[in-house]
């Protein structure tokens, strides 16, 4: 238990250090852009495909029940609310934790094991600034964008599934999906993924950057990055949802 609190403390200090460095020059804009490309565009197909599949499956599960109660017309709305409010942000966060978090943990741990981080320090370059800060910023920036793709891929999957059953037109599906949907159902949940991105970037960088176990530490850093990031994302989600309800009471369905 003490180790767990010690870990939380160390990661928190690591994150605070990263936040401080994010706002102080030199700004590694090119490196940040490269990392956004790595974290964002290379995760796009995974996120879009997963969103589409989840959209199809969710419609398959909810359709029969809603039709039984004569609420078949509600399917698009249920789908859009579920994706925009919870499924999109949470699943995008977990997918990115798996793909990007493992990558960050493994790359930085490998750099530590092969003395590349020492080499950066030895040539008078701040390794934290060029390795850690850009990765955290990239995760924070990329995750909301990926969440938008996840949301719309989910709606597209839902439409395809619904179209197969009822030949509902796209126009009517979209109209029903967005009826009564408020900005507060879309913007705050999307913005909460910046916190997920910060968790993924910080935790993964922490495990990779601070390892001192040589080659054996690479695999461990990758695994720990995914497990701890995912767990913290789920815990943070609970807190953030409560915060969103407090700040935007109208978003509570």
């Amino acid at each position, binding site marked *: 238990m003490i180790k767990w609190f010690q870990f939380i403390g160390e990661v928190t200090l690591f994150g605070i250090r990263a936040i401080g460095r994010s706002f102080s020059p030199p700004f590694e804009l090119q490196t940040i852009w490269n990392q956004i490309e790595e974290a964002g565009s290379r995760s796009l197909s995974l996120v879009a495909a997963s969103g589409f599949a989840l959209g199809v499956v969710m419609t398959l599960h909810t359709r029969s029940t809603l039709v039984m109660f004569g609420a078949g017309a509600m399917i698009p709305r249920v789908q859009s609310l579920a994706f925009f409010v919870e499924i999109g942000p949470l699943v995008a966060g977990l997918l990115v934790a798996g793909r990007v978090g493992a990558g960050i943990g493994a790359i930085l741990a490998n750099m530590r094991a*092969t*003395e*590349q981080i*020492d*080499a*950066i*320090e*030895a*040539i*008078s*370059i*701040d390794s934290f600034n060029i390795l850690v800060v850009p990765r955290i910023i990239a995760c924070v920036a990329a995750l909301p964008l990926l969440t938008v793709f996840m949301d719309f891929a989910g709606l597209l999957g839902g439409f395809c599934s619904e179209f197969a059953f009822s030949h509902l037109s796209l126009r009517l599906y979209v109209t029903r999906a967005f009826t009564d949907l408020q900005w507060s159902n879309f913007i705050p949940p999307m913005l909460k993924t910046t916190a997920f991105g910060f968790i993924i970037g910080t935790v993964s960088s922490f495990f990779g950057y601070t390892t001192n176990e040589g080659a054996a530490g690479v695999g461990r850093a990758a695994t720990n990055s995914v497990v701890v990031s995912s767990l913290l994302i789920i815990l943070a989600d609970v807190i953030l949802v409560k915060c969103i309800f407090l700040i935007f009471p109208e978003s509570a369905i």
Partner: protein
Amino acid sequence: MTNEGEPIIVLDHISKSFASKPVLQDVSLTVAAGEALCILGRSGTGKSVTLKLMIALLLPDRGLIRIAGENITKLDGEQLSHVRRKIGFLFQSAALFDSVTVYDNLALPLHRLTAKSKKEIDESVDFVLNEVGLISDKNKMPVELSGGMKKRAGLARALVLEPEILLVDEPSSGLDRITASEIDDLLLEQKTKRKTTMVIVTHDARGARRIGDRFAVLDQGCLLALGRADELDYHGNAIVQKLFEES
């Protein structure tokens, strides 16, 4: 710039432990500007740790380390960066940045730490790569290089900022005798042409004798002997004799 013959590296009663296991115990030594000091010793006796202490990649538990007159144990940030600019470090594994080409490995420090234009950076990189015989391989990725080529590329990166001090960790490890000798030739050339101060950690007594002006022998974290080759040849300690004669 430290004048030739003046102390440029001073280790004063240095001790270092890892998880309560002592690695270095009360080690003191001085390296003069332009001198080549070779540190010999068995594996795990604190040779590489000594080298990393000299560039503040590790900090000592006790004692102080002066590089060109600066006590680096008390420095951080910009001041430490300023001292490190005077030092080139060749890592045992070469530690090339594996996601970029050989050219980019060398251009990175020039790009970040100097005001040189792209053309000047290209010229500097080409000059150093030419010196180590890798000019035709500058666009290769580190993974495409052999062990000897990696060492040469690592050496080129260590030299590209024209450091006053060159720290070299096991230049011959993992290399055949001929390739190791070629790396020694490059170090020797560096010493004679540019009068670079060198500290070389090695197991290879033959290579050490070629390059070194003085020799330090470490065992179990303690400095067993420090002196010129003729002094160590007749040293009374059996470990010193064995390490220094092996070739």
